[in-house]
């Protein structure tokens, strides 16, 4: 396995608060990596730094062998790094199908070609089918339930055929059935060769799905390794339970 994403000595301060403090870890090619930690430990900030939504005060990001001094979300997306947001961000007025087509990572000239190319439509419909949303293809995405929006957002970032998908709490706030559905989709896509980095609070899911698991506390990595090892790590227990 080779490193797909390397986070090296990343730091980010917001005013007096240090959200991420000299944090380093790697995400291996072909792995489903879990990123856990107590609330406020800097997981989402790391996500934002790694995807270019925020710029680090120091440190660097290496994605697929390329070092990015100032990562740009659009360039990273086209290079194969997709992400979802904690609170499913979709385009509510666009129909589900358009939500996928717009995310295909088109080149410039597509601005002047048809809104829905045949190839795009076919791929988008197949994805909607895969995620059980085909019946909603032509309906505004705003009419979907919260869980369905999360599925739609996940499906949409797959349009660019990414190498690595960062999922920010994919099962937060959705019902247990949908948690299982989401897990299936992640496993299915993982089997197809996509790597994942997942922030998640559902420990059962993380322990089932992720290997390795990275644990953050107070803005830095305190442990990393297979789920069982991490679960037994005194530093992790300390971070979660306190002394």
């Amino acid at each position, binding site marked *: 396995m080779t490193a797909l994403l390397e986070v090296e000595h990343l730091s980010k301060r917001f005013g007096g608060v240090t959200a991420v403090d000299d944090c380093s870890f790697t995400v291996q090619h072909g792995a489903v990596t879990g990123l856990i930690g107590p609330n406020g430990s800097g997981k989402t900030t790391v996500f934002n730094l790694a995807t270019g939504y925020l710029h680090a005060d120091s440190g660097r990001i290496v994605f697929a062998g390329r070092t990015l001094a100032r990562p740009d979300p659009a360039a990273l997306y086209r290079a194969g790094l997709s992400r979802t947001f904690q609170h499913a961000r979709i*385009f509510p*007025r666009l129909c589900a199908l*358009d939500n996928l087509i*717009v995310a295909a990572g088109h080149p410039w000239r597509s*601005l*002047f070609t048809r*809104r829905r190319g045949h190839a795009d439509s076919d791929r988008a419909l197949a994805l909607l089918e895969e995620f059980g949303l085909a019946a909603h293809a032509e309906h505004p995405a705003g009419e979907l339930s919260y869980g369905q929006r999360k599925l739609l957002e996940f499906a949409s*970032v797959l349009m*660019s055929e990414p190498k690595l998908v960062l999922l920010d709490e994919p099962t937060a706030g959705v019902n247990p059935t949908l948690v299982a559905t989401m897990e299936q989709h992640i496993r299915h896509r993982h089997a197809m060769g996509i790597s994942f980095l997942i922030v998640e609070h559902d420990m059962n899911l993380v322990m089932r799905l992720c290997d390795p698991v990275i644990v953050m506390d107070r803005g830095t990595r305190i442990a990393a390794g297979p789920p069982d090892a991490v679960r037994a790590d005194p530093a992790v227990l300390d971070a979660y339970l306190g002394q």
Partner: protein
Amino acid sequence: MSRAGVIRALLFFGVLTALPFAVTAHWIVNLGVFTLIYAGLASAWNLVGGLAGYPSLGHAAFFGAGAYAEAIYFQHRDAGANGLMPFLVLPIVGAGVAVLGLAVGWIAMRTRSDVFAIVTITLLFVAQTLAFNLNSLTGGSQGIGMPPAPFDVDTYERPFYLVLVLLLAVSMGVTWAALHSGAGLSLQAVAADEERARGIGVHVTGVKLLAFAVSVGIAGMIGGVWAYYVSFIYPQFAVDPLITIGMVLMAYLGGRGTLWGPVLGAFVLVPAQQYLAYQYGATQLYLIAYAAVFLLIMLLLPRGILPSLSHLLRRRHAATGRSPDETTQDPADAASTEAGTVAEEMAR
């Protein structure tokens, strides 16, 4: 394009084109000219304010730039043997204003929503101040004149009218093309959530600058026709906040982001304004009546005429449990179904 859409467009532009030949009363054709000016402006504004969700309040500055470009070029020239020269240079005026818009948009479009509105309205006042003070170029408050148009007195307005129909067709054609291409999809994504749009590889900066440039370019061309029509322009009328407010109100009224909405808004508001001015002009009551019309529509159809109508009709279909394509026996129901689909389609 759907066949209904083609027929609707042909019918609309057919009737529009035929009107000045069927009706020769000056006041009607004159009203037509101003309605078309605002319809074209509202439609062009919609590319930025509606599709991209950037509520520009500075479009009158570009309208004025087009007007001054024409007036400055023609102040010491004549309008050609048949008076068509000022029309023939319009594409150059439009391209020039579009390039100007590119530069302005590149800076202004770093801001969003309310801040963008304030930045652009500031731009409008800067442009007006420039028009007042660049005496050697604009004639300052003295104004600047265009050569007289050598058109037949009986049908004097007709050439202006027809050129404006053409510009409206250009504006609506561009809007239609945008809505049916990747550009429109990208713009709608920008309007909904620009940060996420950027994050999924949409060419955000490029597409919004393109929309802004095309939009203000069309506004500039309309300004050029207006300058020739009114033949003498002054800073307070060429770069007028009321022109900005007019086009924005009309786009909101008819339905932002739709193809027909802004045009419909202009065809309702301009004649209404003229009528009310004629009825109550002496008492200033007409401004209150004008505001009342607008408030009433905003109250009853808050998302604009077309989107509210299509939403309403869709809800009715849902309530009666029939899908819009199920034709019914009851002619009244069938008519409402028909109206529903048309409104829905126009609202796209």
